[in-house]
């Protein structure tokens, strides 16, 4: 993994690492309170409905609409934040996650991966059950990179998304529709090795405009891989590599120069 591209000024603003595991019997308010007590020095930001399970069907298969049937209160997820909001942790019935947010230094996978282990260990102690191990072994991992690509650095406005992302062309249509005002796009790649489906890399680009009128592209890359019987850390490393290689592949060389590509 040492040959991955690297940048001096990448536009990354947040890195999240998550592991989906064989679900706990339940995770309601009682468990959320127990977990929050195990994060001394962190703030409970919110308790929200649990995120949907991550499902990655093999290529060509369509995910059936999810059916949920349950008695009692629906499962929740607890969201915690370290002082200064540099770190965010999420715990729910079938998932733990750690997020590093850009405050001064750029966030990186190398920081977040150990923090995830810390989050899982704290949650496991609070819930008095092993997490990321039998009987709650990891099933799927997810690494998410959030990037904010500001207009004015290599591209002027949202009609020039082709200057940033290769998936766009310079003329989006025939006259009078050759230049769009803004665009939103998502595309995915199956991750296949030796004819085996391992997961999927997704790229999602959304235009954003803040109230001051400045524009940016929110570029999210998500790699998900099925753990199977592989080593958890190595699967996470592969997700990280998917994202770095994918980011370099879908963005333009001109932007690589602006971000200070080193290798």
């Amino acid at each position, binding site marked *: 993994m040492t040959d991955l591209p690297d940048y001096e000024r990448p536009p990354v603003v947040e890195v999240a690492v998550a592991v989906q595991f064989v679900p706990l019997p339940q995770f309601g308010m009682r468990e959320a309170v127990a977990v929050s007590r195990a994060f001394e020095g962190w703030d409970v930001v919110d308790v929200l409905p649990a995120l*949907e399970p991550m499902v990655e069907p093999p290529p060509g298969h369509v995910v059936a609409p999810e059916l949920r049937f349950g008695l009692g209160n629906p499962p929740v997820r607890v*969201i915690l*934040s370290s002082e200064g909001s540099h770190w*965010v942790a999420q715990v729910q019935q079938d*998932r733990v996650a750690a997020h590093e947010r850009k405050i001064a230094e750029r966030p990186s996978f190398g920081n977040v991966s150990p923090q995830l282990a810390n989050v899982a260990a704290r949650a496991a102690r609070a819930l008095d059950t092993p997490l990321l191990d039998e009987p709650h072994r990891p099933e799927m991992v997810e690494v998410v990179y959030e990037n904010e690509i500001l207009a004015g650095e290599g591209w002027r406005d949202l009609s020039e998304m082709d200057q940033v992302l290769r998936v766009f062309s310079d003329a989006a249509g025939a006259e009078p529709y050759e230049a769009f005002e803004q665009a939103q796009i998502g595309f995915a790649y199956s991750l296949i090795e030796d004819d085996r489906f391992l997961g999927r890399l997704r790229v999602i680009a959304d235009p954003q405009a803040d109230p001051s009128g400045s524009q940016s592209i929110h570029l999210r890359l998500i790699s998900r891989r099925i753990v199977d019987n592989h080593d958890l850390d190595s699967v996470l490393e592969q997700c990280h590599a998917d994202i770095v290689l994918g980011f370099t592949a879908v963005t333009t060389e001109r932007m690589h120069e602006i971000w200070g590509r080193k290798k």
Partner: protein
Amino acid sequence: MTTATIDYVTSDFASGATVAPRKVSQYVDVTQRIRDRLDQLRELPGGWDHEQAKPIDPDALRLAWTAAEQFLRARLPEPELFPVPDGGVQLEWRAGPVELELEIEPGARAVVFVCDDEQSGQQIDGELPRDESRFGLALARLNAHA
């Protein structure tokens, strides 16, 4: 009273993706500020306006907290909170040209709202829960500039 909630529509292109609210520190700080402000209002004595103002009604305070918290969860801007001489509480939001006022009467008996949009020169007002759809429109206006 029915408090409107806003569900952000997210793409199911990456269903279940591990995302967390973006501005968490702001949320924590803002909720604390609102709690502090409601505590201040709770302690106002009768005649706080140097006239005949009543102490602020506990039910109005409770409903003000519930409303403020729901709107913050929906990522609306931080409201300002003001006492009303009859013992009610007023919440005010401003975003760009849009100003929204929500007044909770004592005993939380009634909730009225007024939304002024300087850009369009329009005013949207009504009473909840009767005018819920109009209130939804006012929230959408506010949110468009938030």
